[in-house]
């Protein structure tokens, strides 16, 4: 059985993990075209080579990211989400309130 290294729990059998899809940067859902939005929601790159993926360690519900070579199935590194998402996201495309605090 394949193993995966969780940044919190260390090396574990792959059966302890849930695959969470490919990581890719989100388009701005307010300004992007419908086409771009559909690409984001329904399509993955499915690149033959290096990809970054979401994985969740099930016993701890811990989400992290993994860099993997889809050709050799070699896992190059796994790292916490905070390496990419460094700060609070209040961008208009993510926040539920506009600046006046109106959101209902």
């Amino acid at each position: 059985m394949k193993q995966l290294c969780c940044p919190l729990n260390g090396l574990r059998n792959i059966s302890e993990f849930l695959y969470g899809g490919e990581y890719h940067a989100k388009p701005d859902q307010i300004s992007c075209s419908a086409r771009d939005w559909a690409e984001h929601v329904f399509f993955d790159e499915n690149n033959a080579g290096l990809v970054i993926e979401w994985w969740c360690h099930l016993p701890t519900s811990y989400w992290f990211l993994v860099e993997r070579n889809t050709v050799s199935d070699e896992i190059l590194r796994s790292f916490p989400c905070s390496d990419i998402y460094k700060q609070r996201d209040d961008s208009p495309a993510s926040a539920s309130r506009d600046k006046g605090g109106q959101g209902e």
Partner: protein
Amino acid sequence: MDQSPLTLVPGSLLRRSPLYRRHAETGASFRQVDDCAVPYRFRSHQEDTDMARQLGLVDLCGLTKVGYKGPGASLWLGQEGLLLPAEPNLAVLQPDGMLVARLSLDEFLVLRNLESDSSLICDMESAWSLDSAVQTYLLPRRDSHCWLAVVGAEARQMLSKICAINLHLDEFPNLKIAQTIIADLSVIIIRHDLGLTPCFYLLADVALTEYLWEVLQDAMDEFAGATVGLAALLTLKTLLVESSK
């Protein structure tokens, strides 16, 4: 050790372990710990203790435990006077025997000691409020998780049949924690040796207590292990004191 007959009926208390029926059926005698009946003995005290030295399974669901989580948790717990593990997946024994387990950078699990009172853990719980404990969130671990113990010289051998984590002492020393999957369910394993006797606490979703219990009993079968009561654990603990004298 108190040898007086124990006549507590577990159903007479409001709080009940999900396993109390099984214990009653197998002739357990119970003792009230906090507000719950805990199986105290299944055979004579000596027999229970001898069994536990080889391989025993103990239901500690009745004992108090609580979780704290959040970016402020370590600060708040420190202010409450607890010693905290330096990194995730380690536990620290408190002076009064309480165990503080660090499950992640900002999540802690506090397990009551086995013998004396639980006043400290209860005081902490009543001191906590969303407003007073900044970015610290209480988790109702006492109700969300069962607490079982696998104890005895053969505990590791037995667990190696169902647990894919290397529990060898070199890799998994006393007070080490693993959060893993056993028999398709998420389990927190904490090694907490009782004196010289290996002991593993297993905590899992309380709705799966009976399932986990059956899995463990099945795995124990070939080792001739059995269910033992809290009294045996207390005795094993004291053996450390004797042997270290």
